[in-house]
């Protein structure tokens, strides 16, 4: 495996994904900020949380890129289209599996059943993360498809 290229693909993909998410947030299309959600797992300080969360998000991107590349190797190659498909699958897992259990794993997220208690104050994402804005699922799908396309594009061959 070409490790430098693998790391570059992860970095490039995550950068594009993060930029898309931040852009959507600043255009008020969604209030879902992955850096904020990741960072508040570590600290209640809003500003620091965003910084820590961004770093964690970049690391996550590298890790996911490795999974993508492993999948490309196992299935006979990458490419933009194949990468985008894997990204779509990734987004589906996020929205359908991870988002519903987020209140259980995030130490500062409130749950619908218990409401805000103690330090668990952050609004839960709700089904398909719709609580963070109606276009949030669309943004998750599009940004992850592009993440996959970037990673796949840098790994056209196995």
């Amino acid at each position, binding site marked *: 495996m070409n490790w430098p290229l693998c790391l570059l693909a992860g970095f490039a993909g995550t950068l594009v994904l993060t930029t898309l998410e931040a852009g959507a947030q600043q255009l008020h299309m969604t209030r879902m900020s992955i850096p904020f959600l990741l960072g*508040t797992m570590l600290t*209640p300080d809003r*500003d620091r949380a965003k910084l820590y969360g961004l770093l964690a998000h970049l690391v996550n991107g590298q890790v996911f890129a490795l999974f993508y590349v492993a999948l490309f190797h196992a299935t006979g190659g990458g490419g933009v289209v194949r990468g985008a498909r894997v990204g779509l699958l990734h987004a589906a897992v996020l929205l359908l599996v991870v988002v519903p259990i987020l209140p259980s794993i995030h130490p500062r997220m409130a749950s619908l059943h218990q409401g*805000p208690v103690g330090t668990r104050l952050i609004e839960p994402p709700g089904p398909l993360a719709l609580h963070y804005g109606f276009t949030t699922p669309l943004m998750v799908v599009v940004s992850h498809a592009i993440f996959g396309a970037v990673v796949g594009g840098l790994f056209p061959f196995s």
Partner: protein
Amino acid sequence: MSAEIGDYGIVGDCRSAALISRGGSCDWLCWPRFDSPSIFAAILDDEKGGRFLVAPAVPFHSSQEWLGETNVLVTRFTTAGASLTLTDFMPVQDDEDTRRFLLPEHELVRVLRCERGEVEVEIVFDPRPDYGRARPRIESLGKLGLRVPVRGGGLLTLLTDAALGVSGRARVRLRAGERLTFSLGFADEDAAVLPPPGSRCIEVLERTATVWRAWAARTLYDGPHRAEVVRSALLLKLLQYAPSGAIVAAPTTSLPERPGGELNWDYRFCWLRDAALTSRALFGLGHVEEAEHFTIWLLTATTLSLPRLNVLYDLFGRKPGFERVLPHLSGHGGARPVRIGNGARDQVQLDTYGEVIEAAAHVVRRGRTPDRSTAEMLIGFGLQIARGWHLPDAGIWEVRGAGSNFVHSRVLCWAGLQRLIELYEKRYLPRSAPIDVFVRERDRIHQQVETLGFSALLQSYTRTLGGADVDASLLLLPWYGYCKADSPRMLGTWRRIQERLGAGNGLLHRYIGPLTEGEGAFGICSFWAAEFLALGGGSLEEAEERFESLLRCATGLGLYGEEIDPVTLKPMGNFPQAYTHVGLINAALSLRERARRGAGDTERRPPPLEARE
């Protein structure tokens, strides 16, 4: 019906502000910033504006006060059988608590406590975002509270221990010792933070009060009327937009300057015309951090429009939006139209150059040396003055239409050049500065003002060159060091201003003209008069007497609007007005200085610059 202007108190968090009436109704709230569209605007339209009311459901008497030296507002209700207190505030916390506690992006906390007896309480939660143009649906998420999606991606949340449903209306019975808490939040960036009601609100109240008390305690003022001066300082701090340092003139739009009239403007911007006065007020009270933050904003904002200076800027130093009318709102007391944006954005106001240079000089007096780019920028302003001081402009009062040759504008051009010359002589400007141009043009301005700007007939400086009217802004001439307050020409001007612009109770109109008919006395002009007397235009006793009579024109909470009704002494126009409070602080500082130096020895304005080492 919405309350009178003077019956409102204010709470804020240095990002946004809410006006709470003596009747317990939050009738004005803009989120996320001072200049954002409103969430509640009942102050501008009782029916369509939206409000958040928490008050006894039976007839009551009420009064408002501050929780000591804080921006926490306490409204006391008394009914036939009960008494209640409503405490309103926007949470603020110090750096240490910011690291420990996660707060909503924006929050208004309301705590209602029944102190005695038993009473039914009415709650009306009726948000109408976007200046009442939206009538959103209130959704309930059970224990996660009520939520109201706002067009543009924001989310309004309300968590309360009151039984309040999606209708937004409820009646709750309270007995002595019981309380209701409300946490109204707004998120427009990240996932909302949903603070639980109850004891957490009390903890946040204590932290907020501690922060405000600590800030107020840093006010270095030991002169008379400290309470009023500290209140003014607290208001300035509340109106200073923390992320940039800009200070909004007022947190409201279109509160009428003339009852039922059309003099209704949006004041949620920062004007350069009072920059030097604001800078001096903050420095004078020892709030160096706020003063420097404001001046840095000033210099950064003006960089964006170099070499031209705009009359006003928004919170981030940009040109404000175009002036627009909101025809669906009936206006406060029926005063239409309600406007947003400000038409003065395209005016030319020559005095702004002198204001910005003078504000920068205040920073230098505090021991800071301007860096090369700032020095070059100041020189650029000087060249702009040299090129354009002889042209007509809209003047300090932003008179619409063709410009005039205002004496005040000329003198501010003189002050700008004079200050640059002083900065040069004290080695704060590079030797390459075109100092001969500045000296030549300064002297030409002086000659013009002394010949055309003074009327031998009136024995007074005049509003415009060759004119026969006076203007209260002429009282600032000694403040900028143009002449001494006790010079014969200034004493003559003062006599004429009193005669023509005096409104009783120590109040002054700004000038008399077609546009000012029916408007009130101008708050800041009245304080300029007190300061003029303190600077030597009168005796110390005269200055104190005038200052004290002006203090009696404040609302019960010690707040001032832009104008004051000379008959009823009620505030008029946008409220509360930062610049009127700037006038109060500066007058108090000059009074203190006069008292320290002794009645016969007047303060030198502006203070001298130290030579650069």
